[in-house]
């Protein structure tokens, strides 16, 4: 099949570039503030010592036992992540050896590496593509604050500007042991989550106007 070089495809490349630039600027302008961890209430709940229902327990057990990782490995930390998956550290013990290339089937995003502004819209998009419930582990100093590259013109100072982060793993890069510890911390966090809402929290059709 012959294709002339001047043929316009769906978009020409320059148009695509322009759109991408617009998108990046948009994301950059809208992510000045860091996003709070949405599950910060978990610790307070625990202090009140609410009894978890057995349904909660089963669901939380299932969720924490099979954390499938989305592929989002921009930089160096990826190799420590792969080392953690590898024969010596072996995260497959926790049922985490399945790396879903499609974010639609993943539960956990391990953000291994420096995040640049050009990459930021893509990371946010991957996060949005993941189905709930989903978690994020910010791996490495770059993931926490931009790390060694913080003063650069193109580096996002921390993933929490773009996506809500559940667990932070310090280190540049963190050793696989640290990552495994982070995964275990995340599992503890998931274990506290309340899946089934209390009856009083449900909208009651009889009591109008009140939640």
């Amino acid at each position, binding site marked *: 099949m012959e294709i002339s070089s001047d043929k316009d495809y769906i978009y020409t490349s320059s148009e695509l570039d322009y759109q991408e630039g617009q998108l990046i600027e948009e994301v950059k302008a809208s992510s000045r503030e860091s996003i709070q961890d949405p599950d910060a209430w978990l610790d307070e709940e625990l202090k009140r010592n609410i009894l978890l229902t057995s349904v909660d327990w089963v669901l939380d057990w299932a969720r924490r036992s099979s954390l499938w990782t989305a592929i989002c490995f921009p930089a160096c930390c990826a190799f420590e992540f792969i080392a953690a998956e590898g024969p010596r550290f072996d995260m497959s013990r926790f049922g985490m050896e399945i790396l879903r290339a499609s974010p639609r089937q993943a539960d956990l995003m391990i953000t291994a590496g420096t995040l640049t502004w050009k990459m930021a819209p*893509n990371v946010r998009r991957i996060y949005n593509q993941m189905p709930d419930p989903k978690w994020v582990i910010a791996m490495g100093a770059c993931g926490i604050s931009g790390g060694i590259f913080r003063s650069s013109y193109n*580096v996002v100072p921390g993933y929490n500007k773009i996506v809500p982060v559940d667990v932070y793993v310090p280190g540049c890069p963190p050793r696989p042991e640290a990552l495994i510890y982070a995964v275990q911390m995340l599992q503890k966090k998931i274990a506290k989550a309340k899946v089934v809402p209390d009856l009083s929290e449900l909208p009651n059709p009889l009591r109008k106007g009140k939640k």
Partner: protein
Amino acid sequence: MTTTRELTLKTEPFVLNIGPVHPSTHGVYRMRCTLDGEVVVDIEPVFGYLHRGIEKLAEERTYTGFIPLTDRLDYISPMSNNLGYCMAVEKLAGIKVPERAEYIRVIMAELQRLANHCIAVGSMLNDAGAYFTPFMYTFRERERIVDLFDMVCGQRLTYNYMRIGGVSQDIPGEFLPALHKLVDRLTIFIEEYENLLKLNEILLARAKGVGILEKDTAINCGISGPVARASGIKWDIRRNDPYSIYDRFEFDIPTCENGDCYDRYRVRIEEMRQSLRILQQAMKQVPKGPVKADVPHLIRPPAGEAYAHIEAPKGELGYYIVSDNSIAPYRCHIRPTSLINLAALRQMVKGWKVADLIIIFGSIDITMGEVDR
């Protein structure tokens, strides 16, 4: 007479976006592929998803302070990056490195080459679709090499081991025996990695004759390293422009003729063997003495410029440093091996299928940290 071409259906090409997040783009590389069914008509590489501005950051750091950043360039082989940068600064400032430090540097660089080729071979086979198994096998041996690095500098990935005028600290006493053991062990495993491909019909079919890079194209594109040698260019900076103490060792420069994926794989395997040869010679000759020249912490090289290049695992890695006699480089340019090796990708993949595109890309062995810097 009508040809089959005229009889076939008229189809529309479509654009497939591979990356920046894709299992086999080795990071955040992105290709806008124009496909005709499964056949790649054209690709347009898009870079910059890991552009951290390292060259700019170099200008605001001291000469020594920039070494940690070089670790994060080609994060699969940080020792080589350290070495290249330190050599450039030493060339600029005219610093003589002690003998023992030179040997340690060579040992580290060659170990790094082994570690890098482990990953290169493993990930290429992984891209061919062997579900993680070869990758795990090569990673198993890489862990042992990383153990040695861990022993000398306490880090697993970003070593920051070399210093201007030597290395940061002497190797511990148990290093050389451990190295000896490792070299013996790796000899066996390199055999295993070779057999993974040599005896496998599917891999041969996938790799042989696929993604041919002609010698002239390779030279014109400035391709270096194993990719160039697989195309028949007998060019190795360790031999053609000996740096450090490489002129003291006996080793061959493996080359192949065809320049396909299979040859690139073979060259890498053969280079691992040669690295082992260098290691065997080097570890017997390590002399006693200091490991760091007497260099002040804040060095001020005389105004001028210098380019030092080394044969990094991926090819020619060079540092072009301009000094204005201050404590920070005036300009530090890094010759990005991976970026320049990608220059020929477009010619190599045209007319091949999507599956071939992935394996050709894998066989070039790039790191995005170095491409984007």
